[in-house]
């Protein structure tokens, strides 16, 4: 389904760039800014292309700084572990809107599903780079080892990407006015959504379970038997943060109104989820008696502090309504959560393993180039699809928006 919208989207992107939606507000800055961003985008994609050439013709040895002692780098820790986590908004919002039936959040459901679908697709792209034999990506589907966490993750990611595709299909059907298939999808939508939430629960946590096998390698600030639980809760948090993040960006890109009250009340949920996460982490560390490690002047201590700070600061800030209702501040908090999450996954997946593996790992430029290209491609494809397909409904629901404006600071309706 991608080729068609892509080609069409490109045309629209070009025309839209010269006539941005938020014309009055942004004309002065938007034209040069977009050119700069496009130049950066092109530079990233070109470097990614060259890195791809290195990967294909010179193998993992020619394109990465991986070694026998350090077999996993940022293509796993960022492209896969962060990619899957940052796409968690899809299942979180599906659960909120369709299972808990809090339908106020419906306007931000579609962008969340699109982000998730794109996120998972790009995770597969990342895997194609990282696997030694990408041509055998399908092997876990026919060669089973139910004792392997990776086997479970492979199945869950495959199935969930399919579910996301089906969850996204109604958007396509709506666009082309295909009512029959839309009805079919609608009929299976509830079991489909429940399946999606279950699959996400399994593999979001399983990405943490992956590291339970390395108790002697992973630094004790991160190694805990409850890694699966921590991965799951932090995925929910970052899924919410990403929803705020992408709403903010798309409102600027498309010059549409920000669903501020809606996002503000979502930020409330985010603050609570983060508080639970931080508290569970605190309890876990105190039960394992590892606070003493924090007095050591090691790189792990500082990276841990950075990660925790990036979670604690937005949590505290988001408890204040003045912060939640200021778009810039709200956005900044969401960004902090996203970076805190990324720091956590990189710590578990790379830096926390260095000392235990007896080696140092700094990604090669080509590893970074591929990662940045995947992220940039994600932004670009999201933009194209959002422009061409009915993703953002908010601008057609200005009335609903006005209603919600009252509700944010009303404790009863906000819940």
């Amino acid at each position, binding site marked *: 389904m991608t080729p068609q919208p892509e080609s069409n989207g490109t045309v629209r992107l070009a025309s839209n760039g010269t006539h941005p939606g938020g014309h009055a507000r942004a004309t002065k800055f938007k034209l040069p800014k977009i050119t700069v961003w496009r130049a950066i985008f092109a530079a990233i994609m070109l470097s990614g292309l060259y890195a791809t050439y290195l990967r294909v013709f010179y193998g993992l*040895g020619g394109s990465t700084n991986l070694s026998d002692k350090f077999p996993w780098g940022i293509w796993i820790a960022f492209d896969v572990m962060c990619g899957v986590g940052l796409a968690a908004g899809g299942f979180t919002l599906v659960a909120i809107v369709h299972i808990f039936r809090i339908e106020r959040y419906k306007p931000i459901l579609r962008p969340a599903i699109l982000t998730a679908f794109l996120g998972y697709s790009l995770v597969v792209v990342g895997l194609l780079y990282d696997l030694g*034999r990408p041509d055998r990506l399908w092997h876990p589907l026919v060669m089973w080892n*139910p004792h*392997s966490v990776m*086997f479970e993750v492979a199945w869950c990611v495959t199935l969930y990407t399919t579910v996301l595709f089906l969850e996204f299909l109604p958007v396509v059907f709506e666009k082309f006015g295909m009512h029959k298939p839309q009805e079919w999808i609608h009929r299976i939508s509830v079991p489909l959504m429940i399946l999606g*939430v279950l699959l996400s629960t*399994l593999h979001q946590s399983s990405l943490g379970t*992956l590291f339970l096998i*390395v*108790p002697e390698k992973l630094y004790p600030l991160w190694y805990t038997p409850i890694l699966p639980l921590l991965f799951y809760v932090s995925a929910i948090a970052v899924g919410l943060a990403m929803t705020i993040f992408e709403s903010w960006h798309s409102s600027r890109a498309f010059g549409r109104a920000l669903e501020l009250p809606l996002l503000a009340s979502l930020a409330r949920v985010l603050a609570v989820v983060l508080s639970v996460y931080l508290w569970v982490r605190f309890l876990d560390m105190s039960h394992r008696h590892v606070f003493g490690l924090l007095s050591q002047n090691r790189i792990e201590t500082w990276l841990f502090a950075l990660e925790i700070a990036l979670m604690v600061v937005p949590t505290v800030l988001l408890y204040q309504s003045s912060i939640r209702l200021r778009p810039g501040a709200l956005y900044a908090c969401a960004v902090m959560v996203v970076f805190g999450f990324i720091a956590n996954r990189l710590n578990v997946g790379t830096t926390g393993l260095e000392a235990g593996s007896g080696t140092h790992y700094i990604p090669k430029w080509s590893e970074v180039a591929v990662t940045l290209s995947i992220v940039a491609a994600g932004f670009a494809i999201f933009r194209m699809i959002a422009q061409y397909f009915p993703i953002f409904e908010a601008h057609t629901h200005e009335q609903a928006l006005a209603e919600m404006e009252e509700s944010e600071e009303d404790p009863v309706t906000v819940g």
Partner: protein
Amino acid sequence: MSKAILYDSTLCIGCKACEGACAERWGLPYDDKIAAEEKISAHKLTAIETHGDKFSRRLCMNCVQPACASVCPVGALQKTTLGPVVYDADKCMGCRYCMQACPFQVPSYEWSSRLPRMRKCDMCFERQSQGKVTACAEACPVGATKNGDRDALIAEAQQRIAEKPDQYYGKIYGLKEVGGTSVLYLSAVPFEQIGLRTNVPLEPLPETTWRVLELVPDVVSTGSVLLGGIWWITNRRAEVSKKEGKRR
């Protein structure tokens, strides 16, 4: 009746005959330059290490409950009843989870190959299943590497310690480490002094992930009931309020 290797560091003279025999058995190149490399890699599946005046030998431990075989998503690694942990390169998709999971950092990867494989010692599975001893044990001129039944080798190791208690550190490495390994070590000094990892847990590592994985059916069934139930309640509520003409 599972097979094992007993390596006695106090007997080893560092001649590297085992390295040469191993290279020959795998059809790998072996010359002075490779002999000088004191670490295992994709082109050197066993290596003699020098630690002061002591020697040590690195090779796959062929664990009794191997982490590598438990984590392999495609079952390319298998623990055989004979003892060796064998590898099927045709299944392997190169996720390298075995390398990450191995507590002894044994699996090596053909990093610069376009169609890479993982490489590791398989305790000469083919030779042993034909009733022959491993290539390294056959080549060892002083009996520092011995191949046989695990139980018999453990008994022999205990006997060696008992006969010459002042020459041995007094423990067998590999007896309990990660639930037991098929390569056993004897040493004159504490094992970390000959480069062995002494911080590995005594618990078999596959347990750590299986404890969580075995909950999957419970999570799926409980989750379906819970989510389905919540939907049933909220859906009914929505229907009722629609009928009553209320706006939610």
